[in-house]
């Protein structure tokens, strides 16, 4: 039962949401499930911080929301990546790669 969950570092939540939505439109719950699955259960999104992040991304115009019907026939709010969201995903993926490479380099030299 004790799984080694890691809390998300600041600022990575947006990136993970955008990446998840690049696979297709999803509702909020599915996004948190997908992130958990794709990270082999290591990452767990703080569910309370997921929705503020979604609304923030929607405001920036990176994702679009509309109401639809879920797999189990319920009304759910689906999010999908917008064009500028796709660009933002590229930008943030790039930045993330640079950051991790730089940190790894520092850790490797010491």
């Amino acid at each position, binding site marked *: 039962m004790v799984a080694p969950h890691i809390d998300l570092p600041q600022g990575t939540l947006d990136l993970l949401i955008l990446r998840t939505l690049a696979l297709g439109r999803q509702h*909020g*719950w599915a996004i948190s499930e997908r992130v958990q699955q794709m990270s082999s259960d290591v990452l767990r999104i703080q569910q309370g911080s997921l929705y503020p992040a979604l*609304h*923030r991304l929607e405001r920036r*115009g990176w994702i679009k929301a509309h109401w639809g019907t879920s797999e189990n026939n319920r009304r759910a709010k689906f999010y999908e990546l917008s064009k500028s969201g796709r660009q933002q995903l590229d930008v943030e993926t790039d930045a993330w790669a640079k950051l991790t490479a730089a940190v790894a380099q520092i850790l490797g030299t010491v």
Partner: protein
Amino acid sequence: MLSDLIFRLRSLFRRSSVENELDDELRFHLEQQVEKHIRSGLTRNDALRQTRLEFGGLGHVKEDCRESRGITFLETTARDIRYALRQLSRTPAFTVTVLLTLALGIGANAAIFTLVNAVLLEKLPVADPASLVR
């Protein structure tokens, strides 16, 4: 830019429907999570409890959502103004005194400035004021 503005205006003026949508969205999430826990073998009560624990305070999450919609500043300002008006209407004597003080203060200042302006500051309305003889 434009979408940001539309998004905020909608949050501001269609407040109740935006709030309802937020409720629906979060309720959907919580129900999904409860069902997931029930599928994994918890009793309904335990599943509810577990879900609530994971999610954190609902009111808190909602407040964060409102904040990230970018209208908190306007809303709290409006709330402050309403509060001030309510307080003022509760103490009419005080309100009248304050209003009179302000009105007289501003009125007296404006009157005196008009006078000083005309007498001391403005140039005389002639072509070459320096050449005038007393």
